[in-house]
């Protein structure tokens, strides 16, 4: 059974399908709960009509299922407000590199 920190670490490997920034650095992960073999991730999106939602869910599920002791991953789609201010300094640096911010 992983710790929430280990789950966050795995999520740092899940990149936005367009830009080389992880969902953690983008500020999209709004909570991680581990209950035995079940991991729940609360995820918000950068926009309501996010075109990448299915790909994101798949990647998150795959990344967390690769952790030892995890049997089920539930991605809970929340629509909490998101803004540029939620991007980490590292995320902003990488987005600048590809000409986005």
């Amino acid at each position, binding site marked *: 059974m992983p710790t929430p920190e280990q789950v966050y670490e795995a999520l740092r490997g899940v990149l936005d*399908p*367009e830009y080389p920034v992880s969902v953690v650095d983008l500020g999209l992960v709004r909570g991680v709960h581990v209950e035995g073999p079940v991991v729940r991730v609360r995820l918000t999106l950068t926009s309501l*009509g996010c*075109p990448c939602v299915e*790909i994101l869910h798949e990647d998150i599920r795959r990344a967390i299922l690769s952790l030892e002791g995890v049997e089920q991953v539930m991605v809970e789609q929340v629509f909490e407000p998101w803004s540029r201010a939620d991007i980490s300094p590292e995320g902003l640096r990488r987005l600048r590199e590809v*000409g*986005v911010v």
Partner: protein
Amino acid sequence: MAGRGWGLAAVTEQELLQRIREGRLVEGPEHATERYLEGLKRTLVVSADTELVSAPAYLRAAQRAPTLNAYVSALGIIQDELGHAHIAYRLLEDLGVDTKALVYERDPGDFKYPYAFDVPLDTWTELVVANAFYDRAGFVLLGDVFRNTSYGPWKRALAKVDREENFHLRHGERWMEILASDPATKAELQEAVDWMFVMTLEWFGLPDRLKRHTEQIEYGLKGSTNDQLRQQWMSTAVPLCERLGLRVPAHFDPERGEYVIDCPFPADFDEENKRWRFEQGPVGWDQVLARWRRRGPANEEFVTQLQRGYRELVRAVA
């Protein structure tokens, strides 16, 4: 026509080539010759037109999306393409081109995008194959420009374009996987691959033995030849299809160290039934060029759709 002409260009041919050889980017007309600027503009128009016309072409088939999320993904891709078109037209505008006339007043037949987009995509299956094949061609071509172009403003703008095309490929591949996993949908997928694979091979244009790229390569407007780019496209498109159990008329030849096309190529295309007339054997590239010049079935519909709002506006204020 080297030298300090009457136009925007400000350096001699020699000064320009020296600059490119030293790996210093051209930042504007003040670093270029007329001949360089004309070549650059021609290249940019093809890129801009291709991105622009993909929007109505994709939008038509997106109406067939199987779920709301799938539809939103398709719309996201179309929005990206319009953004990419805007970048290329804006670069043209900075070079003094009247882009309003270029986009909204040009005759549909004078647009410079690949013939492939003139063949309408009729189903969701064909749309996702277009994302996996056509967007991959765009990715290969623009990736080459990004790495090699001597024109600084384009190089910087493409950093973002390159990233976004990644998502389009991923979307196309993901949906091809889904459709390939069910025998009922796999047959339709194979049918789409049958005409669209060869259509994308054709996209890369004349083979090197018929076309010399001295100007484009000398000026650093592109880094690889048509045949090299076609190979690069096959090097990822063929393994994708093989992994999904789809037949394609090309395979890797380890002895030659390259991909070999296994069908008559180029071939005559039956626009109405969307199939290649392989039974007639290969045709000459002159015939292909003639078909491209005539443009295909959806050319007028798509360009008219793009220009409609502007025309109505012009009529309204007249």
